[in-house]
Structure formats: structure tokens, C-alpha cells
């Protein structure tokens, strides 16, 4: 021991470390832990009040000694002219600074998306408080109600909300609805972005008994009301153009968007009244197994069109018919994709495509991002085309989309 102390006393680095420790010790000894000074928020909801103020609702995690998940969650609200004001109001009322380091979701009510979302998200894109790439979503109710429904769900923290949004992202949106991605898409030439719209439904009385909230003494006073609400996903998608809510996307648009995207994995095609060698008067549901989509950007007499070559491998998921209940109809080695079925699929796709193009042209919503793609891959021809237009915003009016579908069946 003595030799170690002798060795250290001859070491300059030891004296430097000692000096640093002595210097920093007085100021650090009285520092409080972050748990005492920070409110850990996992979800933020933003609404607009009647007076035009912003109301921020925060779902915070307050660790308690309880195995009931809901007992660890509390909801706090604050109002203000700006997001900063509203968060300061929450901080003042809770005695803790709002910490957004674990905030994964930001819910905007549909009303607020009708104004420019960028004004609302400006705080979140600039602040160093938010260190995650939070998901944004919208609701047709108040975001406060959706947060209450999130709290009352039996899943861990807000996992159910994230699960639902992730599901939407994988199945229909085909892109992340994060703040980062929102700004990226908004500042492209096409300027469109999709947000999932979630709703709330009243839970049935049998569900209420499954939550132990009313028996837990540490739950909030409104838990009895909250336990009656459940998150509902009707798979609606809001179209945001230049930061504002424009409309909901139609089913045809969703289908075409999914079909034409390279990265979609869950396309489902339903055809009705099929009569062929396998089935009679049946509804068939085909599920995508694999897909390759190749867009070719071309011009015809100075007018742009996109030709999509799509190779689609499918398998039948379900056949609904009262006439076909025979063993042969559930034969997994049977190729049900007859010429009739193929023709019906192609007809349906063309119909949906026509509707989609019509809506895109009428509403001037470039949901496929065609401006950016033509500008990137056919720049000079695209610029020539734009110069022929009186109003460059009407670039979709002469746009055509063709689909060449190569569909195969997978046993």
C-alpha cells in the first residue's frame, strides 16, 4: 500500500486528476439527479383551443412502485400561445422540466393539420430537447382523447400506439411518418406527405373489468373515464400537401400507391363474381407474395407518362362462395389464377388507376411524387414540358400512367 502511494505521489497525472476532482467537486456534489428535475414524456398531443391557443397534452412516465403499467403513466396538459409556452406551463405545474428525450410520438388533431403543420412542428425540429426522430400522426378527435385512450390500453406504455402506426407504415403508408421524413417530403417539388388518422372508440363493458385501474390506488382520478376508450384504426390516411391537410386518400389511391411502390409487401387484390373452371360466382382474394416494380419515365409528343412494368407473384388467400365447398377448392397445389381471374384483376387495376389519375389531376395532388422523379431522371425534357404550361402547378393535367402487369401464381 505504501509503495503504491509513493508511486502515485511521483506521478504528474495523478496530481492533474486530483486537481480536477477538487475543482469540480463543490459544484457537482449538490447537483440533483435528472429524475427529480425532468418529466419524462413519451407522447405529446397538440390541439387548438377555441381561443386560438395551443394545448399540449403530455403522456409522462412517473415511475411508481407498482406492477400496473397504467399506474406509471400520467397525463398533463398546458396551454399557451406557442408550443414552448404550453410546455413551460406544464413544467410550471409539475415542478419539472419537460424532457422529450424519450418522446416517440406526436399526435396532431385533424383541425390543427388544416393550418400549416410546420408552424406546430417548428419547435420540435429546432429544439435540442427532442433527440429522437418522433413519429407524427393525426386523429379525427382531440389528441388529448387519443392520449387518454393510449393510457387506458393494457399494453406497455404507448406500445399499442406505436404498433398501430408501425403497422400502417408497413402496410399502406410505405414510409415512415417521422418529423424528419415530413420535412424531407414537404420540401420536395411534389410536397406531399401521408399521415395515419387514428380514432377512438368506446370500449365495451367487458373490457373495463380487465383493467385493474379502478382498483389501483395510484391511478389518476379520470381513470374510470379513460378505461372506456380504445384506440381505433380505420386505416384512413390524411394527405398533407405543403404542410396542410388537404383530404383523405381514397381506397383506389391507396391501392395504386401500394401497387406501384417498390417496397410494398402486403398488397391484397379482391375480385368478385369469378366464373371459371375452378369456381363459380366466387369472390377471390389474392395476396402478394413478391413484387418487382420498374417505373419508366417517358415522353410522348412532349407529354409525360410513366410506364410501370410490374412483375407480381400472388397466391390465393381466400375464396368466398357458397357453391364451391369441395375438397378440390382447397387444394393448395391448384393454380386458381385462371385467365378469367387475370383479366378481372387487370380490369380492376386499370379502373382503380383511372380513378386515381383523375383524382390526382382534379385535386392537383402529386401523391406518387412524379414531379421529383421526372425532374431527376428526365430533367431537360421535363423542363421543356414545364415551359409549355401556362401554370407550372398544373403539370399533372397531361400526365398519364400506364401499368403493364405480369402476374404469376405461386403454389
Amino acid at each position: 500500500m505504501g509503495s503504491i502511494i509513493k508511486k502515485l505521489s511521483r506521478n504528474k497525472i495523478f496530481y492533474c486528476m486530483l486537481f480536477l476532482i477538487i475543482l469540480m467537486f463543490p459544484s457537482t456534489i449538490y447537483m440533483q439527479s435528472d429524475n427529480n428535475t425532468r418529466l419524462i414524456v413519451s407522447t405529446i398531443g397538440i390541439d387548438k383551443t377555441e381561443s386560438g391557443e395551443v394545448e399540449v397534452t403530455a403522456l409522462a412516465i412517473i415511475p411508481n412502485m407498482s406492477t400496473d403499467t397504467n399506474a406509471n403513466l400520467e397525463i398533463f396538459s398546458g396551454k399557451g400561445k406557442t408550443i414552448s409556452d404550453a410546455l413551460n406551463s406544464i413544467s410550471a405545474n409539475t415542478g419539472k422540466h419537460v424532457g422529450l428525450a424519450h418522446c416517440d410520438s406526436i399526435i396532431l388533431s385533424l383541425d390543427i393539420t388544416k393550418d400549416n403543420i410546420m408552424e406546430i412542428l417548428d419547435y420540435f425540429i429546432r429544439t435540442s430537447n427532442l433527440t429522437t426522430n418522433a413519429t407524427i400522426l393525426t386523429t379525427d378527435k382531440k389528441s388529448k382523447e387519443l392520449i387518454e385512450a393510449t393510457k387506458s390500453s393494457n399494453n406497455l406504455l404507448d406500445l399499442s400506439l406505436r404498433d398501430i402506426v408501425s403497422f400502417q407504415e408497413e402496410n399502406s403508408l410505405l414510409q415512415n411518418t417521422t418529423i424528419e421524413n415530413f420535412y424531407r417530403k414537404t420540401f420536395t417539388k411534389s410536397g406531399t406527405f401521408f399521415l395515419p388518422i387514428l380514432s377512438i372508440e368506446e370500449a365495451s363493458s367487458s373490457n373495463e373489468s380487465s383493467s385493474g385501474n379502478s382498483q389501483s390506488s395510484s391511478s389518476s382520478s379520470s381513470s374510470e373515464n379513460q378505461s372506456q376508450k380504445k384506440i381505433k384504426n380505420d386505416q384512413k390516411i390524411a394527405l398533407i400537401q405543403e404542410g396542410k391537410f388537404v383530404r383523405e386518400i381514397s381506397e383506389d389511391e391507396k391501392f395504386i400507391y401500394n401497387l406501384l411502390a417498390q417496397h410494398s409487401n402486403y398488397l391484397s387484390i379482391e375480385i368478385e363474381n369469378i366464373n371459371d373452371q375452378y369456381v363459380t360466382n366466387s369472390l377471390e382474394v389474392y395476396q402478394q407474395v413478391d413484387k418487382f416494380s420498374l417505373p419508366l419515365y417517358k415522353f410522348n409528343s412532349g407529354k409525360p407518362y410513366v410506364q410501370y412494368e410490374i412483375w407480381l407473384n400472388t397466391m390465393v388467400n381466400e375464396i368466398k362462395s357458397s357453391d364451391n365447398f369441395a375438397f378440390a377448392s382447397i387444394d393448395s397445389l391448384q393454380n386458381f389464377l385462371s385467365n378469367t381471374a387475370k383479366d378481372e384483376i387487370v380490369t380492376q387495376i386499370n379502373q382503380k388507376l383511372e380513378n386515381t389519375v383523375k383524382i390526382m389531376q382534379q385535386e392537383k395532388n402529386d401523391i406518387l411524387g412524379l414531379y421529383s422523379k421526372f425532374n431527376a431522371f428526365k430533367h431537360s425534357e421535363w423542363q421543356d414540358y414545364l415551359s409549355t404550361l401556362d401554370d407550372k402547378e398544373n403539370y399533372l393535367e397531361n400526365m398519364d400512367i400506364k401499368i403493364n402487369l405480369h402476374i404469376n401464381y405461386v403454389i
Partner: protein
Amino acid sequence: MEKTITTNQLSLILIIFTVALKLSVLPAITCDFAGNNAYVVSFVSLAIDFLLTFVIVIIMQKIPQKNFFDLIKETLSKPVAIFLYLILFFYFFLKLLIALLELQDYYIVALFEQLNPFFFIIALMLLLLFLFNKGFRTIGRLIEVCFWPLALGILFTLLYPIKNIDLVNLLPLFEDGLYPAYNGFARTSFAYGDYMVLLILMGKVNFSKKSTKKIMLYFASILYFIFSFYVIFVGAFGSTSVNKSLAIGELPLHNPNPSTFGRLEWLTIIMWTAILIIQTVIIGKCCCECFKQIFKLSDNKTPSIVLVVALTVVYASLYLKLESIIKIATSNVFAIITCVLHLLFFILLVISYFIYMSKQNKTKYAKQKGGGTDGEYNKKIIAQ
């Protein structure tokens, strides 16, 4: 006499020096000037650096015993050598300042919510004082030990956002003409010119037969990495690239994926913190070497102390003023000065080398012809 460094150590020092200043603020600045052609700007700058580095490495291998100061002193004159080293000192000092400000910015943005400047500066300066006192061989050994874990950590920055690259963000090339790309190239020139570190390391390297090949292979790898970084950065962020003031921190942190799979970017953050400190040390050592040569000092103590004191004073007054320094370093006038300096030193080195070699050849020829020592030959020349 300072101990020599191996080729491997030289290669790694060059890699860390090359990465310095390129992956933090520079990507956003380049995008600000050149738009989506930022990766083209980086490609051209890196290609020029590669070619000039190749020439310098060949020269270094031809005259391994000569350092830059002695070469200039012998071929031009001592006052010229001192003057050039003075310029080099200020050049590296400014780079050091920017590196330190980026380090401090990185700590504040990525690591600490509140950072006491007093403690930060004292702790950092004590560390730098210790490291500046060591030789390049020690620094080289340190990098040899740490290199592969650091490299693997940084490689993660390329892996996260790869699948989110959108070709649309990278095209079309030169949409607004050549001027934005040219402007970006000129205005960001201060961050390039990495062969300048070789001028300091001349005469300190123990070359072998395959040294040039090894050095250039390592150098090409890091240039490829930097170019890929810029491609991924622009491809992933598109129009919002200008908002990403700390690219290396924000590429994994704010990539398009939500944070549901955990915070893997912390690996990159930790590794980048270590790299920032090492690159600061290398640049600082270059300053110390310049100081030593100007004042003909043999030890590292005096230049280290002087440098750390000067740095503390300047750094403390420029605390949190990275933006102001960047504005100066990317101004039009500074861009011209930097480009001229980079070319000037390269040209001077090449000219000095040829002058030196011709003198050597004359000496050899005279020896072969007349037989005798160099002294006798010189007497003959004077007599003539």
C-alpha cells in the same frame, strides 16, 4: 532526434487527419453552397487531394532523411523556410481551433445538456498539454491500438440510412449550372488539403519498399468512405441537408427510421468523440512541430505549453462561436487564400525537391568523374 514512425502509423495518422473537419459541419455547409451536388464537390476535392498526396508521398520516399524545413533551407533559404513554417503554424492553428469548436459543439449537442465551459476547457487543455508533449510515434501507436474499433463504430453511420437513400435527392446533376458546385468547391477548400500534414511528417517516416502502395491504399479507402458518406448524407436528407449542422451525429440520430429499435447511434457518437480528440491532437502536434522548427527547439515541452496557453486564451474567447469561425473560413477571400496556399506549398515542395535532387546528382556526377570527396568537389566549383 525524434523517433521515426512506421508506414502503418503514417497511414493511420493521415486517415484521422483526413477525416478531421469533414464529417461534422462541412456536409451541411457544402450542401448550402452546392445544393444536391455536394457529393460531386467532395469527389473533386478528394480526387485532387489524392493526386497531390501521391506525389508528396513519392517525394518523401525518395528523400526519407530530409524534413520540409531542411529541404527549403537548402534549396531556397532559411528565412523562406521560417516564413513558410510561420504560415503553416497559423494554418494548422486555425484548423485546430475549428476542430476544438466542433468538439465542443458536439459535446453540447450530442452528449451533454449543460456543459460548464470552465470545466470543459480546463479538462480538455490538460489532456491536450499531456498529448502535445508526446511524439508522433506515441500518437501513431495510440491510433494503431484504437483504429479498428473506431473505424467499425463510424462505419455504422453508413449502415443505418443506406436503405433510405432516394436517388431523386441526388439528381439531377448541375441543375442550376456549374456555379453552385464550383462555389462549393472553392468555399470549402479549407477543410481539404490533407497532404499538408505530410509536410510536417517529412523526415520522420521509416519507409519500406511497399510503403507508397500501403499509404495510398489506406488513403484511397478513407477517401472512398468520405465520398460515400456525402452520397448517403445527400441521398437520405435531400433538401433538409442544410439543417443538419452535425452530420456525423445526426445521420444516425435523425435518420428516417423511428427510434423503435433502440439507440444504436450511441456507438457512433462514442467513437466519433474519440476520433475528434485524436484529430485535435494530430493538428495540435503539427502546430507544435512548426513552432519547434521556427525557434529551433529540441524538446516538446515549450511548444506544448505555449500552444496550450495560446489555445486557451483564443478558445475561451471564441466559446460557442463556431458559426462565426466557419463564416470566416468559408468566405470568398479566405477561400482564395486557402486554395493559393495549398497549391503554393505543393509547388514549392516539388520545386525544392527537383533543385535538391539536381544538386545531389551534380555532386554524385562530380565524385564519379573526378574522384574525391564532396569538399574537394565544392572547392573545384568555387575555384571555377
